[in-house]
């Protein structure tokens, strides 16, 4: 551990979320699956933090923990998530009781979420306006009419035109990209401190992906909220993130600024992930796989995160840390 944080450390110390020692188990027929083991990282205020990792690495489970959306057979067994909102005293999320009014307030009020599947994320039997306005009605005492007006405003802002007509339409009358805009409007309509995006562009085609990313980035700049962006696409990370958290098998392997992680990855797994991007590989050679880069380096033993001289954190055996720091 180095105490003196270097001056070029781009990460701020004003954190809206501080996650420590988070552990989640899933009870399956074959025994307990440890979905998260000792996960810890900070979400700095007003920045975009990306969580990257392959399928099953625990990205979405982490997001669900923050919203307390982990459903049986999954269970949070340990850890703390400290939430520091700007307008009320900080509190811890994991220990909130089910009936605590702060939990209901947290969901959609302080923290909201955009999901992967826009095609199924909205109920087919209610109008778009109804579903966006409901988010407002859940958290503030306003009339239905006022809620609808604000919903229309937010829908306009995420780029849905012809509001008068569209607000009365049903989700199945919208395309995938449009539906994702609706979900984003629904998430932002209560001006949350944190917007969690769980692979929001994975189910969309490339042009729409770019539009949605730009939208999220622009809105983040306007509304000054913090974003936790979950993705397996490193191209998206480069485009949108300030800070990157690399996850693998339910653990955090490396945390750093986007420049640190993408330009000079320290952890062998991160290097493997980067080498496996098709566009960056040298032409005419077989694409590197994570396994070929990692080799027989041990990446499954859960070493605690060590902070390096440049402010990044990495999970490596102590003798390797010294090497990596050079």
């Amino acid at each position, binding site marked *: 551990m180095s105490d003196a944080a270097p001056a070029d450390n781009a990460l701020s110390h004003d954190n809206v979320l501080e996650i420590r020692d988070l552990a989640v188990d899933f009870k399956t027929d074959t025994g307990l699956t440890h979905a998260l083991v000792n996960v810890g990282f900070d979400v700095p205020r007003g920045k975009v933090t990306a969580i990257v990792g392959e399928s099953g690495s625990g990205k979405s489970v982490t997001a669900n923990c923050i919203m307390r959306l982990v459903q049986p057979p999954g269970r949070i067994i340990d850890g703390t998530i400290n939430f520091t909102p700007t307008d009320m005293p900080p509190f811890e999320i994991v220990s909130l009781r089910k009936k605590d009014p702060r939990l209901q307030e947290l969901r959609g009020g302080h923290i909201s979420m955009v999901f992967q599947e826009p095609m199924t994320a909205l109920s087919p039997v209610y109008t778009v306006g109804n579903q966006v306005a*409901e988010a407002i009605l859940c958290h503030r005492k306003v009339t239905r009419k006022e809620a609808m007006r604000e919903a229309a405003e937010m829908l306009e802002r995420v780029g849905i035109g012809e509001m008068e007509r569209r607000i009365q339409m049903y989700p199945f009358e919208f395309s995938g990209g449009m539906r994702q805009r609706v979900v984003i409007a629904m998430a932002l309509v209560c001006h949350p401190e944190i917007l969690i995006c769980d692979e929001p562009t994975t189910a969309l085609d490339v042009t729409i992906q770019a539009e949605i990313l730009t939208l999220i980035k622009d809105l983040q700049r306007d509304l000054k909220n913090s974003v936790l962006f979950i993705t397996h696409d490193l191209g998206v990370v480069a485009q949108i993130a300030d800070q990157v958290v690399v996850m693998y098998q339910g653990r955090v392997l490396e945390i750093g600024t986007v420049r640190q992680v993408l330009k000079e990855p320290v952890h062998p797994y991160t290097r493997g992930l980067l080498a496996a991007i098709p566009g960056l590989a040298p032409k005419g050679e077989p694409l590197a796989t994570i396994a070929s880069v990692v080799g027989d380096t041990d990446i499954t033993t859960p070493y605690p995160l060590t902070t390096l001289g440049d402010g990044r954190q990495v999970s490596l055996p102590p003798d390797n840390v010294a090497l990596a720091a050079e």
Partner: protein
Amino acid sequence: MRSYLASRLLGMIPTLAIISVIVFTVIQLPEGDIVSSMLDRLQAQGVDVTEEYVANLRSQYNLDKPMVMQYFVWAGNFLTGDMGYSILFNRPVNELVWERLGYTLSITISALFFTWLVALPIGIYSAVRQYTIGDYLMTTLALVGLATPPFLLALIFMHIGFTWFGISTGGLFSPEFEDAPWSIAKFADMLAHIWLPMVIVGASGAAFTMRILRANLLDELNKPYVVTARAKGVGPAKLVVKYPVRIAINPFISNIGLMLPALISGEALVGMVMGLPTIGPLLLQSLLNQDMFLAGSLLMWLALLVVVGILISDLLLAWVDPRIRFE
């Protein structure tokens, strides 16, 4: 929407016409007719009947005409509101039908409401609290309800009522109201009697509906749209009712029309066991005696009820599910 309704209403006409042909044919299929079954009875009592009398009877009811003619006379009269004369009961069919159709309708429709009233909350409870003691209790109870035929349930209830409480649970009225003209007191007396056939006829339907609702709801409970709604802060009770339940009940709404025939035939058996003044026992008697006008009219009325029931459930489904409405 208006053109959809019009086309559906028009579509009912050929459906009912075809049903009427089938009804007429099926009733005529067995050997003999109402006159010959009457003769059998009279001769058994030792009454001498002349050939002439028989021929007179046959021509009076058009039974000596060709089948096709008979059908058109019957169908034509039915359309003008004259359902013919029941030789068996010696009364116009119209009277017999109007007397009893109302009771059959009251029992089946109240049984339908009973089915929903019971199945909806229990089905939701069982799904939301899956694999708890309450869930096991309810699903087991439903299985028993499903496996018990309505007439057996009727017998059990009547037995318990008679031996334990000393009350007669048959019929729709107490003896003193049986032939009394309609009054508030008579209506109250009917309500005091009708709940038992309602519960008996509706029980297996409630068990069936509850089981299917539980299964449908379990499929819906963890759908992404429910997670989205939970993530935006919708409270737990409202969340379940507004999102997954709303989707899970759609198949039942489209099934109301299909549930009617089951309820009506269930009601027929229960009606016989409990001695109810409904269509069921009347239909059985008329079929056994080949009383064509009565049997045919009753079957036509039941067919009409089912066809209208299906239309209503289709309209209801279009009303609650925009995906259907917009097709």
